[in-house]
């Protein structure tokens, strides 16, 4: 079993158009590193030096990981991680 990661339209060029891919890891950080090995380039769109990018929302099941433990959030088989770019502007 693995963790399903739901990919937004704007990042599907990294996943050959797939809306959902699977990845593995014990924390969100590990999951993203594993995702990068399968879909090179995607990590940079999700994290920067300070952690998760400010205008990318990442959810573990029904929760925003910012309210959990950020990149350190534990994840396990059967979880779903959803990535949604924040809709924002000025």
């Amino acid at each position, binding site marked *: 079993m693995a963790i399903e990661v739901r990919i*937004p*339209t*704007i990042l599907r060029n990294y996943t050959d158009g797939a809306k959902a891919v699977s990845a593995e890891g014990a924390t969100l950080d590990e999951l993203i590193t594993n995702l990068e090995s399968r879909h090179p380039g995607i990590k940079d769109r999700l994290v920067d030096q300070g952690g998760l990018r400010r*205008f990318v*929302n990442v*959810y573990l099941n*029904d929760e*925003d990981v*910012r309210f959990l433990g950020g990149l350190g959030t534990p994840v396990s088989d059967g979880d779903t991680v*959803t990535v*949604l*770019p*924040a*809709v*924002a*502007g*000025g």
Partner: protein
Amino acid sequence: MLSISQELADKIVAHARADHPDEACGVIAGKNGVPDRFIPMENAERSPTFYRFDSMEQLRVWREMDDRDEEPVVIYHSHTATEAYPSRTDVSYASEPDAHYVLVSTRDDNEVEFRSFRILDGVITEEEVRFLP
């Protein structure tokens, strides 16, 4: 070109007027590029110069669209003191390549500017808006 019913356009303007002087924002969901379901969103920033969808509300609405096979056909927000043209921040955070970005300005009490744009890879392209009866 964006074709949108007058009724939906009026709802966007009413939302923008109601939230003035803060920016208002929301989505019109639909299928095959046809705007249909009006979804006003909370501006989590509650600001006259910035908007951001509340992250939990966004998850709920995006899931709902997924379940109904809809897309965010229109993403709208208001400018409350400047023209209805995408700001630099609007361009840098634009993340739905298939959406019509609708801007309305409420800077004038009587007249409303209602304009639509595509924002792709940092490039703004204005498009014609056709209001349908």
